[in-house]
């Protein structure tokens, strides 16, 4: 399983919510949050993390805490 987090760097571009809508949504403040964490590994999460203009998305192994590269 992976832990997914969105840092306070988020500017609400919506890139993650648009590209991985099963994993990210924008809150009332317009900023992104993961819909669930931990989640089963899914390349869409890594794609969203790699596409974030603020590098605000972190993905790590839920067991070891080691960051998952994207």
């Amino acid at each position, binding site marked *: 399983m992976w832990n997914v987090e969105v840092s306070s760097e988020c500017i*609400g*571009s*919506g*890139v993650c*919510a*648009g*590209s*991985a809508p099963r994993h990210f949504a924008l809150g009332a403040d317009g900023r992104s949050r993961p819909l669930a964490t931990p989640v089963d590994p899914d390349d869409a999460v890594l*794609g969203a993390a790699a596409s974030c*203009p603020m590098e605000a998305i972190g993905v790590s192994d839920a067991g070891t805490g080691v960051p998952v590269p994207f």
Partner: protein
Amino acid sequence: MTSLDDTTALALPLPPAPSIYHPTPRLAELRANRPVAEVAFKDGSTGFLVTRYADVRQVLIDPRFSRAAAASTSASDTGLAMVATDSILGMDPPEHTRLRRLVAGAFTARRVEELRPTVRALVEALLTDVAARPRPVDLVEHFSLPLPVRVICELLGVPPEDQHVFHAWSDTILSDAGADPAEIRAAMGKLGAYFGKLIADKRATPADDLMTALIAARDDQDRLTEQELVNLCFGLLIAGHETTANQINMFLLTLLHFPEEYQRLAESPELIPQAVEELMRFVQLGEGSGLPRVTTEAVELSGVTIPAGSVVMTSMVAANRDESVFVDADRLDLTREITQHLGFGAGAHHCLGAQLARLELQEALRGLLRHLPGLRIAVPDSELRFKTGMIVRSLHALPVTW
């Protein structure tokens, strides 16, 4: 002319705005009374135009509004849309993400910030040259165009001396629906061939640039096709300079149209980063309604059910003047604490170069205020000549003096 209070489909494109500083007033009427308006395109086909901030933002982010499904619609007869059809702009996730993630790393806020000294030095050099010229000076030729051209050329690995070669093709491709589609296709072919040759050169002689990195992603990891590689490179080149160049012009024109705001910025340059955000919200770079989407299922917006398979257009300029989000929205206020304007769009297709554009616009304003105090446009607005048939307001020249 179609009346706004009936249910007849509204003809798109809307008549031009009476001023370059504000959207056409019809958009405010639509936003108030028909926020999801039925529209008719030139060929008689129909769709919807969305004007409220919340609705526009949803259309841009919600994957039920598909770019891929829209790429073949008749609303896509502009040059940009034709390019978009063959490119990352015409794709939906996950295909879109496969390409976006290859280039996004070069355009993050952190990576772009590393370019600030280079951009600042370039601004200094260009403006030192401008300041030494006999006045009036054409800012398009000597500053607003060469700045973004050199930045994107350096990042991508395109020789800046080829600027005169690719700029004419770029202009043709960015024409609106008035241009001959065959001409647009021809320009796209030439630009594609140009990049084909550049890519072959880079394969032979790799360099430390984005094009070389993309070639490696293709050749070593098979993450994109040769055609996608070419389209991505020429998309980055075009998107990377025409918009920024004209946004610098429009920023300056708008600031000088509201001299008290210009004065405020001159006295408090520390306001520049937030001023750039407010100007991104306020400035009328284009009048149109972006790239079309098509609904993959029925969706309700502002109480209107949009059936599946409908073409949906979004007016970012209308959304950016939505009073329910931006108080006193038609007023330029550089001290506004602004968040989440739609000047760079939103969602999967949120402007890839947004952070780079921000940096260039910040440094351009800083340089203009510092090097050319008392800057003013040397001709009245009525003598400003915009290229006809462009999707952004694109000036032939911007004569300035100081």
